[in-house]
């Protein structure tokens, strides 16, 4: 009986997590494109894994309009200044579907920082989706978020800061 309950529980977790993985193709596609283009090491996915993955998937299913749905990938130990702004932007643009449109671009040569923020203009959901790609110091971070309705203004106003909050 215990085994049956365990198996049922496991099946539930898999069923809930699978659609989320399918939806992550878009996210993974950009991660892989950057990884291969710049020969980067394997990224970290702080919100995936044996425990966090199913928990995030369950949160997605149970989440109301006030829950943040977020996907994060980070590449670490990158040589500062590795990314040439134009090449970096072109690589990201090529790898994202056309419905993702850039609305903020920040390039800082002195700080070796690049921030690109995209909005999903074809979103059929009730919430705004943003993609924030930040290269700074020796780290490259990708954050895709489905923004809670009460945080829309904060994300549109200051997407970089909000994205950093998600990776802490």
């Amino acid at each position: 009986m215990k085994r049956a309950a365990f198996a049922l529980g496991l099946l539930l977790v898999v069923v809930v997590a699978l659609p989320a993985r399918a939806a992550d193709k878009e996210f993974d596609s950009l991660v892989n494109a950057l990884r291969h283009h710049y020969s980067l090491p394997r990224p970290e996915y702080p919100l995936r894994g044996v425990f966090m993955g199913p928990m995030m998937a369950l949160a997605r299913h149970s989440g109301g309009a006030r829950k943040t749905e977020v996907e994060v990938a980070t590449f670490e130990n990158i040589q500062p200044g590795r990314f040439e702004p134009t090449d970096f932007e072109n690589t990201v643009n090529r790898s994202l579907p056309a419905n993702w449109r850039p609305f903020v671009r920040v390039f800082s040569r002195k700080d070796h920082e690049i921030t690109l923020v995209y909005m999903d203009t074809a979103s059929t959901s009730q919430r705004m989706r943003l993609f924030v790609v930040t290269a700074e110091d020796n780290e490259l971070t990708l954050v895709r978020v489905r923004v809670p309705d009460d945080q829309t203004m904060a994300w549109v106003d200051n997407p970089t800061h909000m994205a950093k909050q998600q990776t802490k």
Partner: protein
Amino acid sequence: MKAPLRVALIALFFAGCAMAQQIQWPVKLDKLAAKASEVVDVQLDKKMLGMAGNFMSQDDKSDQEAHNLIKSLNGIYVKSFEFDKDNQYDPADVEEIRAQLRSPEWTRVVGVESKKDNEHVEVYIRNVSGKISGMVVLAQEPRELTFVNLDGNIDPSQLQKLGGNFGIPKVDTGHKAKPAAKPAPAPKAVQK
């Protein structure tokens, strides 16, 4: 972006003016990105503004105000270049923008020139059938060039609420005769 731009925006505010039609950004100015130590580029067209507006909270008062404000706009465009050295851009390059603002519907409402700091700020509004339908702010400093274009109708009284959002410099109306202490944050500060 320092005092002159703030003064310009205050003057604009009291003049009861406000907003813009899409101004074409000269391609040659985009090449400045290669020389600039920092570039900020914000582009929100009507579709993106509409989407952001649709997703805003119906319960939050400030979100509602922001929604009311942006629903009449066709676009918000901010470009800012910061340089490590003086005179990295040719002021004549900016002339291409200024030339577009010489059409009859555009009026220069503010022009501030600081010889001491070598700063030059201009504010233009577009007036169509008695309604303000666009605004452009052009700020030139030896190491900084900033361009703000608000395209669409806006109530002048709402201008202050727009400042500080979407990469637009914050507007200080100076109603309570506050000391002109803190300079308005530049777009870069908003994005960082």
